[in-house]
């Protein structure tokens, strides 16, 4: 029997929708891409509309609609937490009431209003947050059986779950409950270091290699008690999230030498060392949990999801530990991926659909290219409507050679091709590309294109078949979720003395560290995307053309957006972002647009203030 399931996540952060048909993932997208509001938590009406568009389905044809968590359990946790915290939690209680009771119990009404129908069953199913994460990690993975590890801030009561997936069954056997949360620990440091919680965590991770783990012992001694099996408890005396609207409290501040860093202010050695320290703690816990899971399940493979699973440095460390033969991490590991997990649970558990595994041994995530595509005719209609000058090159080989040539000449290229990525990473469908060999490129792209702090490294895309020539990586990393060392032979010596004494990050950043300096982080690591022709033949072709031209199979790949902006979705978004920055070339499917040929651009908003900082 055929079965079509819509999954939704909403009302926390990164709301999303996903569509699964007969066990195959048809579509998935985050609401932010359509609403243009970063991490948009609102009901994902636009994403949902897109999923039905992709499947060309009327809502009445849906066999099930599944929401990714259980609002009543969340309410239970909030209520008990506030009762326990007492009077000091009154403000938090008020906020939670407005949030939980104001929106979340009305999921059915939202769906009915958006779709005019609740599908064939005329009902909405609710799953549980970490079960949805687990499903999003296991079902699309290439493994018949795998241990499952989910880690995030909190979902209902759980913060960490461990389990086993086999064929289409899922069992979560061990859990760690709120308020003990690895995600919240990391978020506390994110906040303390002056970044935004729930979105700035990846900045903290990027900052870590600039520091020394001088606070590691302090964190282990005062903040978190870790057992040999990886289970942990936080010392709640140091955290504010139980009884206030802040992640940390005065005790935390005293422990780490003063108040939190103000956002946008100078990043001192303290923040760098704190980042390095909490990163080391997180990696240690993840590895211990994985070892425990291996002992408990005996499974050869591990799958992961939840916001903490986006920590690609920890993932890389875990992989190199060699605990499991295979590792697969859901590329949309945050709450957005919960929509996909919910849809997959609906298909495999509720509707008993058999699990579909890719016959070629690859995963079922389709490269995470699960968002909307725009046909060349749509692109041309857009360009003609606005009379923007463009050159159409229908011959794919000629076009890719031309783009590769531009990259080799030091041009920065906005690349818009095929279906948009699902998840926070741009994987060559909505990417800004540059020459990784160019020592000026990191600073240029950061300051003139992305308008962001320059300490953050760019990621490389590399031909999958050539990854081993550049990185110490013996496994594919198609979703940019593994950090790997740049090969020793490619590294350049650095002035270690200057590095040790540097207070200003720029002193460190501007030192070339390899023959692909723009993607080599300060610790010689890189957040690698291996590009396989089966996942994205077009992007692989571009890398191949660049390799043929230059002998180098690596380019810079950063998300197609400016600081604080969601990744572009439509040709219109892409053109606007192109004109707001100093990108040289915009590729919209088979059309090429050069910045110098474009007419004056009348921007209708002050985007530098419109987009919130992470």
């Amino acid at each position: 029997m055929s079965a079509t399931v819509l999954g939704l996540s909403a009302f926390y952060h990164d709301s999303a929708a996903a569509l699964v048909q007969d066990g195959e993932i048809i579509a998935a997208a985050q609401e932010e891409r359509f609403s243009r509001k970063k991490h948009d938590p609102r009901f994902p009406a636009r994403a949902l509309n897109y999923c039905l568009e992709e499947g060309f389905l009327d809502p009445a044809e849906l066999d099930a609609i599944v929401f990714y968590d259980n609002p009543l359990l969340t309410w239970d946790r909030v209520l008990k937490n506030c009762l326990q915290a007492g009077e000091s939690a009154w403000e938090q209680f008020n906020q939670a009431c407005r949030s939980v009771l104001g929106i979340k119990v009305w999921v059915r009404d939202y769906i009915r209003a958006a779709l005019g129908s609740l599908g064939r069953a005329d009902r909405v199913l609710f799953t549980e947050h970490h079960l949805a994460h687990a499903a999003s990690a296991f079902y699309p993975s290439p493994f018949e059986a795998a241990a499952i590890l989910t880690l995030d801030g909190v979902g209902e009561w759980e913060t960490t779950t461990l389990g086993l997936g086999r064929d289409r069954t899922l069992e979560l056997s061990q859990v760690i409950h709120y308020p003990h949360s690895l995600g919240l620990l990391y978020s506390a440091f994110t906040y303390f270091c002056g970044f935004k919680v729930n979105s700035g965590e990846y900045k903290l991770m990027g900052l870590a290699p600039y520091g020394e783990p001088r606070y590691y012992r302090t964190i282990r001694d005062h903040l978190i008690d870790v057992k040999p099996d990886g289970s942990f408890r936080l010392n709640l005396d140091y955290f504010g999230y139980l009884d206030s609207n802040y992640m940390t409290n005065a005790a935390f501040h005293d422990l780490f030498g003063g108040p939190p860093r103000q956002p946008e202010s100078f990043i001192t050695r303290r923040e760098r060392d704190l980042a390095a320290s909490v990163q080391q703690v997180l990696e240690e816990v993840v590895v211990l949990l994985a070892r425990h899971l291996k002992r408990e399940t005996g499974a050869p493979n591990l799958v992961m999801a939840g916001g903490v699973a986006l920590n690609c440095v920890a993932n890389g460390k875990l992989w190199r530990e060699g605990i499991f033969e295979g590792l697969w991490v859901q590329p949309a590991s945050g709450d957005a991926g919960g929509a996909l997990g919910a849809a997959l649970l609906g298909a495999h558990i509720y509707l008993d659909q058999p699990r579909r595994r890719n016959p070629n041994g690859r995963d079922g995530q389709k490269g995470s290219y699960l968002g909307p595509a725009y046909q060349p005719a749509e692109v041309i209609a857009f360009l003609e409507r606005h009379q923007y000058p463009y050159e159409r090159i229908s011959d794919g080989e000629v076009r890719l050679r031309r783009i590769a040539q531009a990259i080799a000449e030091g041009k920065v290229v906005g690349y818009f091709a095929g279906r948009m990525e699902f998840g926070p990473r741009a994987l060559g469908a909505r990417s800004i590309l540059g020459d990784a060999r160019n020592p000026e490129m990191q600073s240029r792209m950061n300051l003139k294109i992305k308008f962001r702090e320059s300490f953050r490294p760019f990621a490389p895309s590399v031909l999958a078949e050539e990854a081993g020539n550049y990185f110490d990586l013996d496994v594919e990393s198609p979703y940019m979720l593994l950090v790997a060392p740049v090969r020793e032979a490619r590294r350049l010596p650095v002035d270690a003395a200057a590095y040790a004494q540097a207070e200003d990050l720029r002193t460190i950043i501007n030192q070339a560290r390899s023959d692909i300096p723009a993607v080599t982080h300060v610790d010689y690591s890189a957040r690698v995307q291996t590009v396989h022709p089966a996942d994205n033949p077009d992007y692989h072709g571009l890398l191949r053309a660049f390799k043929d031209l230059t002998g180098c199979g690596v380019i810079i790949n950063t998300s197609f957006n400016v600081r604080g902006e969601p990744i572009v979705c439509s040709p219109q978004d892409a053109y606007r972002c192109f004109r707001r920055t100093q990108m040289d070339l915009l590729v919209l499917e088979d059309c090429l647009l050069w910045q110098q040929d474009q007419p004056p651009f009348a921007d209708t908003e002050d985007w530098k203030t419109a987009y919130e900082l992470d």
Partner: protein
Amino acid sequence: MRQLFEYHPVIGYRFIPGVKARVPHEGGGYLMRANGSGFRCRHEFTPTKAPGVQRILLFGDSFTAGEGVSDGQRYGDRLETMIPGIEVFNFGLPGTGTDQHYLAYQEYAAGLEYDALVLGVLVENILRVKARYRIYQNDQGDEVIYAKPYFELDHGRLVLRQSPPPRKPLTEAELPPEERESVDRGGRYHTLRRVVKRLGLRDLAQRLTHYQPYPEYNDPMDPAWLVMQAILTQWIGGQDRPVLLVPIPFYQYVEQTSDPAAYQERFREVAAATGCSLHDPLPDLWRHSQEARRGFRFTRDPHLTAAGHQALAESLAPALSRLLEGVEAGG
């Protein structure tokens, strides 16, 4: 929201060929897909018919294209399920007038094999035939004015003007003063209608005032009607195959808040003059209860709901079947 339309030098615009979209709408959203010729039709416009198939060419505006409902729910698609062995080529194009439908016919349909032509003329189309400009929303949601091709009568002869129409939209301020009256704003009393609609008093106001939305039909010598009549006469007169002329009533007529007699008389005159078949679906629609008829349009959007399309198709099917009797299925 995807861009759905692109400039067309003859018609003014068409759907982007091949575009597939789900359009958000008060009815919950609807699915649409354009064929390779840029029309919302489930068939590609292949010149030759398949053996045993009777092919209908259907022209009209958004009521025919099916704004508000998914492909498959439109009256053209419903007819395909009601009458065995037919295929309906749907040339419906939202926001266009009968003048543009005629141009679309000349551009895309003249070389096709077909058995019958159905002209679904929403009675409001007379305003569009009269207009040289029409208001649309751009991709920022702002109202802009697009020029359209139109016909004028010169000594009784139809002359095409503003062809090709300019690509660039105009703002209200950019519109030449002498052209202000040539913009189709959807009917009379533009500002008053907006206020009444916003207050939710539209139905009541129309009932109380016996609102006549299209007085252009009152007089057979009205300049707008004369152009409309000339277009229909020339179009139908050039046919060697059966033609069914279908005046599609706007909701005021379906819900009997306005008197349809004038437009009914005008269409009867055209049918009589050209010898084509006329099917007025209004009597059939009136057989439904008042409550059911209210359900033929959306709460705010006056376009036909799936129930409205079904009712229209049920009315049309016998007339179309009769028309096709005696027409040999081609091969």
